[in-house]
């Protein structure tokens, strides 16, 4: 992430979008149009209207373009995203930005379950709340949730950062590997092997950089966050446990 959300907004104001209407064209046609954007395309701003909760809107993008979606979307919106910036002016259903590789997905409302699941890179910003299993099996994505997250979030989280300005539900970080979790509010309970960890200068810097990228640096005090991560008791082989195998 280089550009902040604020810078992106400024850029968006400058160029008119191509309108794609899901009431007029099929989802398949619209996704195909977005997939066919070439490397040298000059049109870099697209706007999808009338999503009406449809699934798989703007999935599989792989171009440095901005796609705005006006309204609530269904499952798997912006899944497998690469390089594109997808801004959802509404709520997102299950699995928004799942398996994202790079780029930015910004949900301006709430997100349902498994937001950012298995994401390998890029950034997912959720302005509202995310429900259960946010960041499940994340593998390098940066997730910033301005509200709270539901139960079993960051389950088996392997790499990347997971930042929550509100609270986290039950069993945060169950069976976590090496993802970095930063939570400002309360954590209902921890999953297996997830523990409170010291916030070092490195982590403060990391957190600040993610807040910056999400366009909210300066709006929240990083001193209010606590860091959580793996106790490394669960996934490391320990010779004393050899008899168990």
């Amino acid at each position, binding site marked *: 992430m280089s550009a902040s959300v604020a810078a992106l907004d400024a850029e968006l104001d400058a160029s008119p979008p191509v309108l794609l209407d899901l009431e007029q064209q099929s989802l398949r046609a619209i996704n195909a149009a977005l997939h066919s954007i070439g490397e040298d395309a000059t049109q870099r701003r697209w706007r999808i209207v009338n999503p*009406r*909760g*449809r699934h798989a809107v703007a999935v599989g993008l792989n171009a440095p373009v901005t796609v705005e979606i006006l309204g*609530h979307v*269904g*499952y798997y919106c912006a899944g497998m995203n690469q390089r594109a910036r997808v801004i959802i002016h509404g*709520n997102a*259903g*299950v699995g928004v930005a799942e398996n994202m590789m790079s780029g930015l997905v910004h949900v301006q*409302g*709430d997100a*349902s*379950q498994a937001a950012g699941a298995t994401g390998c890179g890029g950034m997912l910003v959720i302005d509202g709340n995310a*429900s*259960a299993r946010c960041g499940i099996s994340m593998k390098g994505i940066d997730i910033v949730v301005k509200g709270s997250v*539901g*139960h079993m979030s960051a389950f088996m989280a392997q790499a990347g950062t997971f930042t929550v300005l509100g609270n986290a539900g039950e069993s945060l970080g169950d069976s976590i590997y090496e993802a970095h979790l930063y939570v400002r509010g309360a954590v209902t309970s921890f999953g297996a092997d997830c523990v409170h960890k010291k916030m070092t200068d490195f982590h403060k810097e990391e957190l600040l950089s993610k807040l910056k990228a999400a366009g909210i640096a300066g709006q929240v005090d990083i001193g209010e966050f606590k860091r959580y991560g793996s106790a490394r008791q669960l996934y490391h082989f320990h010779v004393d446990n050899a008899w168990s195998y």
Partner: protein
Amino acid sequence: MCGIVGLFLKDRSLEPELGSMLLHMLEAMNERGPDSAGFAVYSQEKPGFIKMTLRAPAGADFAALAADLGAQIDEVVPVRSIATHAVMEVPAEHWPRARALLAQRVPEIAIVGEGTRMEVFKEVGRPSDVGARFALLHMVGSHAIGHTRMATESAVTTDGAHPYSTGIDQCLVHNGSLSNHNAVRRELRREGMEFATDNDTEVAAAYLTHRMRQGDDLASALERSLRDLDGFYTFVVGTKDGFGVLRDPIACKPAVMAETERYVAFGSEYRTLVDLPNIGAAHVWEPLPSKVYFWSHAS
């Protein structure tokens, strides 16, 4: 999979549109449940009467049946046939006798639901077709729940379709599967509950009915079900005055709700809600796991 929907009208002026609103919600759930569909509509009460929704094999003569029943109880029994179903209005004092007579004289006829306000319709088929067959478009009422089925725990039959009704004006639709339904069914049978099918959802409906007969209100019956029912579920429950929603603690099954000044709506997905009036201004949220939600008209 399966899709479930619920609609509760706060604004009585919307009541003539209940059927068309619910039909659109069900149609949006065709893909989640293409096997079968069903719905319960809570319409005007006729004081002193119980509405019995009956289902018969194709070609049944419900008018003759009502005349026959009327002769037995010495009353006129109004009947309204809708496709394979009929709604018979039986004077409340003759209702137990009417049930017994039906079981004895026409055992092939199933009682789908009974209530002072509730009417229940369900069939095998694509939800949009099922809705059309029963002329849901024109139904009027204060609230309704519906279901589109993709069978997992029992066969694709009308008996396997939801809603399940196990008590007066009570019915339930379910997305998910219960893992301890056989054990709970055995216990409820010992307590005197009767079952028409092997379906897991019928067990959940009977469980709630049983708890309410023990004195629980719907909210406490739902609370207790968190302890006694094991499995995956999102339940939407209809009662005479309102409807309730409960998701299991793991909350794998999807759920979204919308509320405006005029209505409260539930859907498995937001797609079900998009044609509701002024949905753009609704408060839309995902109900929390293990939390009982309930709306009712003061009775």
